[in-house]
């Protein structure tokens, strides 16, 4: 199984999912609008007072990013499961975990990266100062892929299960907690002047670990679900 067919397969899978996402642009935009709306609810719900908003800003933006990326997990495999293309993917001569990585990468490009690009807007809305916003983007850049990678395991496990959408959140949210803690921790440290390298290196470690381990879990879950 030479190298070229693997990278050829990777590019084909990523471009396939991106074209599919572009053909159904509405689904992509709903995730982004959900992210914006959830963050804008907090000033209404808590208080418009800037000082308070600044202190809860990292947590609010991170939790909203968590929920938004989980919202879009449902579509990761379910359409392919319905029309039989997932079966064909399981029968490809390439390793399934690499295929899963390509699909999750495409899913992140569509539902994770936009959150990172939108976060400065929301950071300003909640009164974060400039280095707070920069660090928010960095933590989201490192964190959102981990959310997609871990979420993919949950999406694969609940494939074709009635009420699967809600069930995914129950399975996956507890596993997001370490990323949430160090993501918000880094921004808090930056805004209060403490050093944040420790948090970022941990987020980086989570990213590397989940890139290596979760596709194996997702591939195994897919084989179980397609049976």
């Amino acid at each position, binding site marked *: 199984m030479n190298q070229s067919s693997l990278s050829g397969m990777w590019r084909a899978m990523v471009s396939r999912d991106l074209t599919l996402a572009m053909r159904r642009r509405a689904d992509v935009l709903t995730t982004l609008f959900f992210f914006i709306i959830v963050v804008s609810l907090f000033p209404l719900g808590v208080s418009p007072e800037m000082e308070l908003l600044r202190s809860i800003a990292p947590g609010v933006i991170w939790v909203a990013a968590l929920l938004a990326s989980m919202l879009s997990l449902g579509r990761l495999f379910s359409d392919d499961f319905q029309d039989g293309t997932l079966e064909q993917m399981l029968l490809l001569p390439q390793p399934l975990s690499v295929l899963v990585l390509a699909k999750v990468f495409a899913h992140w490009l569509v539902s994770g990266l936009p959150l990172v690009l939108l976060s400065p807007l929301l950071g300003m809305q909640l009164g974060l100062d400039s280095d707070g916003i920069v660090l928010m983007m960095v933590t989201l850049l490192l964190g959102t892929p981990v959310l997609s990678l871990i979420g993919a395991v949950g999406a694969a*496990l609940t494939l074709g*299960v009635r009420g699967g959408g809600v069930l995914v959140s129950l399975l996956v949210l*507890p*596993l997001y*907690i370490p990323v949430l803690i160090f993501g918000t*921790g880094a921004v808090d440290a930056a805004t209060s002047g403490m050093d944040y390298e420790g948090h970022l290196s941990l987020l980086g470690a989570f990213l590397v670990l989940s890139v290596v381990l979760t596709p194996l879990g997702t591939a195994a*879950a897919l084989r179980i679900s397609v049976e």
Partner: protein
Amino acid sequence: MVSENAIAWYHFSSPKNFYPLAGRLIPWFWGLAVILLVVGLYMSFFVAPTDYKQGESYRIIFVHVPAAWMSMFIYLVMAAYAIIGLTWKLRMAEMMASALAPTGAMFTFLALWTGAFWGKPTWGAYWVWDARLTSELILLFLYIGYMSLQSAIDDPRRAARASALLAIVGVINLPVIYWSVKWWNTLHQGASVSPTMAPKMASIMITTMLVMTFAFWMYTIAVVLMRARRVILERERQTSWVMEMVNADPQAEMKK
């Protein structure tokens, strides 16, 4: 030459042989559980001295700590059965994993419940975002996730294997969750405030706690074996041996 216990182990890994074996073992574990519980309770109330600072309310640790230990221990055993079940395709291991989950979830809830009723007299609040209590809460979410995935999937074989995989993912994440919650707790509250386990532990208190833990252990084995027998009946419904057993002597089977 296959060693002696290997044959026995393989023999009892088939549901058909495990079912009667479990039936014979259950009364023994019940006996042990009751004895240990009685001894443990007696020690908790009459042997352990009154604490100079907390008075009587510290006795709650004789239930809280064993329940917390059991909740963690059962999840690890569940994950172990899940790994065995998935790698060697042993249906019996998968059934044991699903039989363990409800009892594990119960002990997790009890650990949180008794933790709250110990916290109120000791630190003045039912819920404290202490690292251990928070990790216990997350463990409860993992149990609930496991059980809801298992019940959401109709095909029993796929349900068993999917939830086994979830248990493995959970057990890999557990130390990371526990360690990051511990770090998060010390950062925001500082080490001093977080409630320590208990005042300096007199040795009699530790032995009481161990007796209670063993009592809970025996209880768990007995209940899980009973639930495993029900799971076996449900999943082996179409096999001949279940039919024969039910036809042979229905009334006796009902009582056992």
